[in-house]
């Protein structure tokens, strides 16, 4: 449990560094999280994945199946790992402001 300062506001993070409140998400947070998840530079493709994850989460309340994410974004799993070295369940979800997926992942 910790807090980070984002544009003058204290934002709460859970034990794994994910947002406690998904509604706290904003673009400034993405830049902060990028550093801890080994994302050097945020490109258009990163944003494509982030926006896709946010849209899906808004609709279904969870992260999409990894294969569905690949199919819908047109990226291979390898490319997703290149974009988010810590993986789709950790890095990509964290940057998109989703809660950390629980269970056997």
């Amino acid at each position, binding site marked *: 449990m910790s807090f980070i300062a984002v544009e003058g506001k204290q934002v709460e993070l859970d034990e794994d560094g994910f947002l406690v409140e998904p509604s706290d998400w904003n673009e400034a947070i993405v830049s902060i999280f990028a550093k801890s998840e080994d994302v050097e530079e945020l490109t258009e493709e990163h944003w494509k994945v982030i926006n896709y994850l946010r849209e899906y989460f808004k609709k279904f309340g969870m992260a999409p199946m*990894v294969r569905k994410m690949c199919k819908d974004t047109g990226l291979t799993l390898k490319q997703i790992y290149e974009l988010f070295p810590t993986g789709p369940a950790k890095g990509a979800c964290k940057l998109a402001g989703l809660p950390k997926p629980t269970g056997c992942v």
Partner: protein
Amino acid sequence: MKPPLNLAKESDVNAIGFTVTRPEDHKQRTLEKMAELRDSMRSLMVMLETCTKCGNCAQQCHSYLGTGDYNNFPAARAELMRRVYKRYFTTAGKMFGRFNGAEEFDEETLSKWVTYFYQCNECRRCARYCPFGIDTAEVTIAARHILSELGIMPKFMQSIASAMIKSGNNMGISKLACLDCVEFMEEEMQEETGLDIKIPVDKPNSDILYVPSSADFFTNVDTMIGVAKMFHHLGVNWTIPSSVLEAANFGLLFNLDVMREQNQRLNAAALELGASLVVQGECGHGWRAAKMYTEGASGPVPFKIMHVLEYCDEHLHELPLRKLPMKVTLHDPCNYSRGGGIIEQPRRIIRACVEEFVEMTPTGADNFCCGGGSGLLMDEMLEIRMQLGKKKAEQIKALGQIDYLAIPCSICKAQIPTVMKHYGLEGFEKGGVMDLVGKAMIYDKPEEE
């Protein structure tokens, strides 16, 4: 000593219906819970009373071999509880204390319990080599249960219990999300086979209730697809329950009352949908929980429980399978091969699906745990998890080049790829056994005109 895992904070503990015991009451509450378990769990008392410290278990425990930590030597791990048991529950221990190997229960003991009972994978390999059959997993299960009754539990376990309460599965998949996943998998199968293969959800009057691992709805899609193709080909009346989209039962891994609730959920779903057969998906500990404890939790039940690998093995001769040009080995999930009755079935299935099957050493009931067993998948324990996976990495390395490592359990499926990468073992695929069945099925695609 600070345990190497994140514990759930009080508000989270309360949110899943537990209370937190104040430190000054830790001892009293622990002894009350031990007394309860002494009466309800006879096996535990046998495990606590019979050890002769012969040391046979040390070289058989991947946790001790991987970490080199004395307290991970099974006899030493069990001793953490045994000493407390002796001090408060035996005459010799009450009278002679330390001279009789007894020890007071204090905060230091408590920290050791949290640390070391969460470095045991409950794999039961020690029990196989113990001349008295002492099963440290039983001691670990009891210790974790007592800790949770004090309100001490890993955040990881608490998050899963919380998701389970909300959705009936570990990942928090709602029915809406489940239906979306199902639609996606049906489209994938349609594209591949040209056939309309369904994954029925909550279909009333189903003969078979199939209980998948919820991870099959996130990362392990091919396992669910393999199962759907099999049921489709056999033409059976089956369904999956959105209320229990989960073969896992993490209660077994941290609190026995939570386990009972999940068992009862399974029973309710089977009764509601009218199933006479419950088929459990690829999940190791969940198989143990369903097979061993469903009747204990719900009384006699009007359905039979089988594992999907048992079911598939029984129907193997009815499936149109071709042999894929692959060299495949099998990792035996601990809860299948030690006391779970599943050793030969996956081997027969794999042999029917691929050209070459090779055994790792040791294998079957002697196989080593992946190091993630009993739910040790916490990110903060990554370094320890890699040590726990060291024996598994050595086993795979000794095989030389393979094409596919079959791991029919979701915990193993989450742990093993990380272990393989950590030890520089790459260049092969990893996945379930049912995944292979799905890929080996022969379809006569309608000729394109």
